[in-house]
């Protein structure tokens, strides 16, 4: 069992009448990549700011690396790197000068700082351009500079807010690789995003945020199994007796639901890829199989489904 890096209990933040974060309980373990998912305004950034002691919780507790960010912000901020949403630099200064300021604020001696800066910039592929002013940098280069910036303090953990937003597909792909390398080095990474396929590609576990609450959390597979009640969706097109076919499909082991979609098409919900079994059952029930398709559960499905449900619930409550 690995160590807990971040732990919150009943964490709440209220701005006047608006509740930004509502009674949040979450745990992040050492060495994992955790994705916070949710629409804008669902409380992701506020949660991050409370973890860094940049804003005070209204109620509840946060522990980051066993420290209380509200009381020991310096220790927390010395160990945790933060890449904010649309990170900015001093445009007239060079990359080295920008990072030197960060190093000074972290109290790193000049000589040590220079070698760390050099290493970090080389690693992020910015070695060639390190003495150019940051205003000449592209969006992707700035984002990599931001990673170099947090690496200067040799963090145990890095928190990123919408790290791939505004990057072109290639830049985003490259950035996801950087996150994987950070994980290999044993750095815990938490990222907030609404770009689902990227989160799915890189995260060990995810948490779905909605109106300040974390509705679901777990690995993508776990979520699919728990929440989608069988995450695989198999679609068959079969000619034959509808009732007999439905009955036969239902009897296949592992199938959770069968629905008729019209025009001889059936939707089968299953806990795994049961294409072969479903096809066999359909044929044995005297059906003439015309086509067969399977969709693995994606985070998009879980996400859409989850938000449909919570919105449905809240509108019912309102009515």
């Amino acid at each position, binding site marked *: 069992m690995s160590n807990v890096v971040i732990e919150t209990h009943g964490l709440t933040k209220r*701005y006047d009448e608006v509740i930004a974060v509502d009674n949040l309980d979450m745990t992040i373990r050492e060495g994992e990549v955790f994705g916070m998912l949710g629409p804008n305004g669902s409380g992701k*950034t*506020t949660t991050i*700011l409370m973890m*860094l002691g*940049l*804003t005070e919780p209204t109620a509840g507790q946060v522990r980051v690396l*066993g420290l*209380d960010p509200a*009381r*020991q*912000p*310096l*220790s927390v*901020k*010395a160990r*945790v*790197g*933060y*890449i*904010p949403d*649309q*990170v*900015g*630099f*001093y*445009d*007239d200064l060079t990359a080295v000068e920008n990072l030197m*300021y*960060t190093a*000074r*604020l*972290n*109290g790193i001696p000049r000589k040590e700082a220079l070698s760390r800066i050099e290493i970090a910039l080389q690693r992020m592929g910015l070695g060639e351009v390190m003495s150019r002013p940051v205003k000449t940098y592209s969006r992707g280069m700035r984002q990599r500079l*931001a990673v170099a*910036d947090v690496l200067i*303090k040799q963090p145990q953990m890095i928190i990123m807010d919408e790290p791939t937003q505004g990057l072109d597909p290639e830049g985003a792909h490259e950035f996801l690789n950087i996150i994987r390398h950070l994980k290999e080095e044993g750095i815990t990474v938490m990222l907030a995003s609404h770009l689902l396929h990227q989160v799915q590609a890189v995260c060990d576990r995810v948490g779905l945020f909605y109106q300040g609450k974390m509705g679901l959390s777990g690995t993508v597979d776990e979520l699919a199994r728990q929440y989608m009640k069988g995450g695989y969706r198999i679609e068959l097109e079969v000619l034959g007796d509808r009732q007999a076919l439905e009955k036969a499909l239902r009897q296949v082991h592992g199938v959770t639901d069968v629905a008729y979609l019209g025009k001889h098409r059936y939707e089968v919900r299953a806990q795994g890829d049961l294409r072969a079994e479903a096809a066999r059952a359909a044929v044995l029930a005297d059906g003439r199989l015309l086509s067969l398709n399977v969709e693995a559960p994606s985070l998009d499905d879980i996400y859409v489904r989850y938000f449909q449900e919570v919105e449905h619930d809240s509108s019912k409550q309102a009515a």
Partner: protein
Amino acid sequence: MTVASKQLESGRHTREGSPWTGLWAVVFKEMADLLTSTRMRILEVLILLTAIGASYAAMTQIRQTIGRDVFLFLKLFTVSQAPIPSFVEFLSILVPLIAISLTFDAINGEFNRRTMSRILSQPIYRDALLFGKFLAAFFTLALVLTVIWLLIIGLGLIGLGVAPGGETVARLLLFLVATIFYGGVWLALAMVFSITFRQPATAAMASLATWLFFLIFWNILAGLLAAIISPVRLGLPQEVLHNAQTQITLARISPTFLYGEILSALLNPAVRSVGLGLLLPFLPQGAIPGSALPLDQSLLLIWPQFTGLIAATILLFALGYVLFQRQEIRA
């Protein structure tokens, strides 16, 4: 109970570490930024022209009119030759302008560059950032003013060929300190506006508007208000005196007025009283008109004004501090 949890218990009521962690890192970086910025270049040119113009005008005037004067050097700063105003007149306009230009984008600039959350996620407190920025601007202002001051004295030495006496130097030094703190008031004011307004342009306009208000309108308003608060109905001397006192009290809310009083006492040793003395044409009994006051007496005269300026700087900074501490980091 373990040591760690005990530390947590005791840490519950106090913040760890010093609020000034990282202060000097901020000061050095900000000063470097300010000194290399374009606005500094513009100000340098403006200041150079002012210094040369004003001291040249003063020197021609001094050579023509005054042969021998113990405080010849002070005249260098105060004597004017139409249409060129004297150097102190220039300064009372330039100093607020320099000060405002140094801090009007101190805080909102960080937000606009989106560097604020990155900087505050470093192991420092907000205190260090705000105070560091203020100190950097203050040191820059002091540096600039000291340079002009030395420049004028240098020009004076060359132009007049007379070395200033000890008391003159002391008066000039105090004048420099007063000018720096006068600038400090406007630094702190522009900083407060840079915290309140998200747009640097709005903050600059608000600061300039406040300065113009005190420069032009406040004296007029003080007169009008004094007429309402303590009117002169019968023209009795007590009434006139009372009215003048009210007017001067109101006028002293303006830092520009305070600075004016300080200058008049420091740079003109013959001034025997400030405030009422400037308004009412009578002198304290037994005084010999035209004779100079010793430095300590001049200083005594404007001590309240001096501390007033320093207090205003500190108060405005404290206001900015409270506002900044309460501000949300997210844009």
